[in-house]
């Protein structure tokens, strides 16, 4: 089974998603257990894959036994094994969380929701695992279509937000596909490793240069890199809680992964860094993301929207780590992918829990919630502190690497901007935290005095995933040294 793990991890959720329709039409209750079991299996498989990679090195899996570059090949090294674990673990945890949310928000759509959710996970895992640029496009489209549908299920202006996202996302996908097309014309190959061998001779070809630009812009839209982020806040604000939690914590990260693959596997670091100063440009764009994400986050009155802008800033952090093009910065970027996935999942899930209990997510609605849902709010605060980058929470450790990376590269301005952005995010979050714990209650001044707030904690199926993430944020940071030496140090592209 270990030998077939790379294909099983894709096939199992794919088959399960179709199975889900059939089973769901017969017994709606069975959808949830099916999803949990399926995603539980992908967690186990992804762990086994990482284990294999650590012990045996890179896995090459040929679909149907066809030789590359003609057949599709799955190539798994430390980098995508690492991302696979994040995606599968987060998707599993959020699936557990989804139960009450689905029951409350759209009980009649349970079957379709879970079907699409599994497709979304399949797509993300596929993007991560494949070693073929066109195959990657196929999975990218599966992911995108699935997420448009999931967002459209949400409240208020969700269909409009989803439509906006669809337009932007399609443009991004088109750019990506054009890039694939140009490279295919230039080289006749779609296999990443093969492209990596063929392209160096063609680096001066205008077609190849344009292809690279298409790739980067296309992926930048997908991962909501400032200033191509405009679709994100609406989409994640109005999406169902489960969807925004999952999309926020994994989709942008997988986008960054694709960017890394394109820049450093398909193209060589010397092309992406020296011949075309793309990292330089990305660095400045990412600085913009950090600062404007932070400022716009402060301006929001809705917590989910605020979190969306903070997510945009966090994407900036990760991209900055990649853009400084050295070992320390890259390590920081990958650590931040992991920690931020946990942080964002925790924050959006906690916001979703508030939505579940109070029906709104405005900052005002968070007033004194620590009395009503103390554990959820504790988890929210922990994740918020991690997003700010305060020790001892995980976010601090990845930011430490990121700043050191910027300094190593001699980019002092980035180091300063990283710290400045932390301050902006701190202001944004403490507005909420202050409301949660210390805001005078509404009734205090009209004579009623301290009103009795009954403890009304989030249901257990939502609370456990939230607390799991919070525990991860508390503990993982201290093990960042271990994570780096076990996995991340092998992912750093050569020449860094």
């Amino acid at each position: 089974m270990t030998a077939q793990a790379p294909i099983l991890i894709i096939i199992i959720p794919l088959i399960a998603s179709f199975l889900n329709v059939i089973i769901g039409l017969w017994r709606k209750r069975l959808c949830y257990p099916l999803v949990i079991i399926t995603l539980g299996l992908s967690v186990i498989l992804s762990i086994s894959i990482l284990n294999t990679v650590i012990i045996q090195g890179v896995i090459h899996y040929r679909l149907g036994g066809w030789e590359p570059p003609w057949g599709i090949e799955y190539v798994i090294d430390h980098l995508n094994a690492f991302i696979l674990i994040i995606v599968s673990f987060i998707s599993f945890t959020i699936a557990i969380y989804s139960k009450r949310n689905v029951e409350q928000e759209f009980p009649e759509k349970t079957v379709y929701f879970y079907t699409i959710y599994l497709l979304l996970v399949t797509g993300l895992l596929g993007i991560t695992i494949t070693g073929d640029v066109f195959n990657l496009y196929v999975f990218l489209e599966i992911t995108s279509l699935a997420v448009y549908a999931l967002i459209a299920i949400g409240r208020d202006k969700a269909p409009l937000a989803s439509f906006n996202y669809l337009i932007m996302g399609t443009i991004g996908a088109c750019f990506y596909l054009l890039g694939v097309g140009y490279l295919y014309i230039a080289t006749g190959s779609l296999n990443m490793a093969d492209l990596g061998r063929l392209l160096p001779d063609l680096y001066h070809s205008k077609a190849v240069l344009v292809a690279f630009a298409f790739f980067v812009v296309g992926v930048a839209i997908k991962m909501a890199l400032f200033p191509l982020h405009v679709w994100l806040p609406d989409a994640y604000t109005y999406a169902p809680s489960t969807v925004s939690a999952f999309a926020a914590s994994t989709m942008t990260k997988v986008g960054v992964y694709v960017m890394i693959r394109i820049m450093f596997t398909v193209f060589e670091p010397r092309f992406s860094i020296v011949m075309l100063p793309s990292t330089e440009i990305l660095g400045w764009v990412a600085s913009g993301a950090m600062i404007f994400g932070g400022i716009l986050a402060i301006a929001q009155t809705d917590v989910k929207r605020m979190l969306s802008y903070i997510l945009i800033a966090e994407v900036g952090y990760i991209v900055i780590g990649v853009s400084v093009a050295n070992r320390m910065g890259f390590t920081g970027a990958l650590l931040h992918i992991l920690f931020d996935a946990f942080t964002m999942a925790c924050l959006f899930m906690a916001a979703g829990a508030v939505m579940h209990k109070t029906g709104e997510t405005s900052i005002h609605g968070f007033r004194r919630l620590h009395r009503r849902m103390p554990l959820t709010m504790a988890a929210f605060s922990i994740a918020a502190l991690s997003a700010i980058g305060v020790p001892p929470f995980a976010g601090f450790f990845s930011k430490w690497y990121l700043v050191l990376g910027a300094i190593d590269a001699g980019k002092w301005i980035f180091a300063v901007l990283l710290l400045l952005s932390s301050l902006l995010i701190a202001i944004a979050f403490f507005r909420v935290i202050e409301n949660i714990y210390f805001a005078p209650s509404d009734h205090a001044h009209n004579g009623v005095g301290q009103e009795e707030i009954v403890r009304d904690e989030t249901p257990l199926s939502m609370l456990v995933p939230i607390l799991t993430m919070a525990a991860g944020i508390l503990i993982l940071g201290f093990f960042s040294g271990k994570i780096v030496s076990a996995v991340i140090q092998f992912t750093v592209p050569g020449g860094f």
Partner: protein
Amino acid sequence: MEAISSIKPLLAVIVSLIAAFLILITGERARNLREFWTILASVVKFAIVASMVSPILEGNVLEYTVISILPGLSLQFRVDALGILFALTASFLWIITSFYSIGYMRSLNEHAQTRYFACFAIALSATMGVAFSANLFTTFIFYEIITLSTYPLVAHKETSEAIKGARRYLAYLLGTSIAFLLLAIFLTYNAAGTLDFSNQGILAGKGSNALLTVIFILFMAGIAKAAMMPLHSWLPAAMVAPTPVSALLHAVAVVKVGVFTVIRVALYIFGIDLLSRLGLGTALAYFASFTIIAASIIALRQDNLKLRLAYSTISQLSYIILGVALLTPSSMVGGIIHITNHAFSKITLFFCAGSIYCAAHKTNISQLSGIGKKMPWTMTAFFIASLSMIGVPPAGGFISKWYLALGSIEAKEIPILAVIIVSSILNAAYFLPITYKAFFEKQDDAHHEEIKEIPMVAIPLMITAIISMLIGIYPDYFLTLTKEVIRLR
């Protein structure tokens, strides 16, 4: 000097974290059990800290590496004489403050006591962490935990005033630490390649004079917990907190962590030679002198007792910095021993303010006429602690000021000597009138409500007052430890 591997420093840090957890679990339902955890943890913590004293006095250090974060950068503890002196003071005072807290919180029937005691325990944990940290990385982690864990304590009352105070508290402490301190740490790491504290300093010869000066300024601006002007205004704002918090945290733990970090940076990151070569020691000394005088003058004008004490704290903290900044052996002894002296006398003064508030609900000095007759124990303790603050022999404060004065002469900085003398006069000017008012002025308002001292509140403050006097009479114990700090240099 020998490094002994020992898990004790970690235990000393962790014990109150565990207590915080137990306190949260126990909650309001079993108040006595909850308070028992606080007391138990404080006693155990003190015992652990005290057990580390004798190996330190023999000239050893205790080391423990918790986990490695980056190559050459670990979460690591190293207990030396300076650290143990601070830890000993803070953990001993926590025991007394715990009893005082219980008396204070219960007599005022305060809300959210579980949160209060839990945050208190976490703050003490982090204080030990700073005292024992072996490198700046570890220091920074615990420095930030202190800010975060004391923030709820400042906002405790949950009135709009408390929230504003807490906001300022956070903005100053978290803001400066991220913007300046963290940046300074990165610059240091980049220049020196390490963050480990070393007796010789790690930055000598590792950068241009301009760079090193910039790093030093960033450090001083980043460590706002030391409350040097102009970054002091968070401390008066923090006075909205319940009095035990002001007493232990904003007169001992939090602010002393700031001063302690300043000392660590000055002596163990820069080193005496480098500081004197760059002239930064003298510059810092004059900066501190300004704070000493300016804060004392502002203190004169405060009518709110806690605010007057807060400005007095700002002024007294700069004595410690001054002592270290003069870079002579005597001045350093004076500065470092002032950590302990100021801790005992200032905590007494705050305890007294709290005692008056609990028993008579008075907060302003102008209301204190004649209160000495009703609260004799409190006001006597207040008087004793004032003497120590002013530096009258045989109170403990005299020892610090004596060494500081000696140091300023050794350093040939006569203006500094003048500062010490003038500030002593100012100290007398803002402390003695309070005692005078309490004992010799007649109460002017007609109605005489019943004012009774609360034993649980009054006993702790008498203990600290007596100890602050004893340090002056028997200074040897602390002087030995302090001289151990200097000897190793």
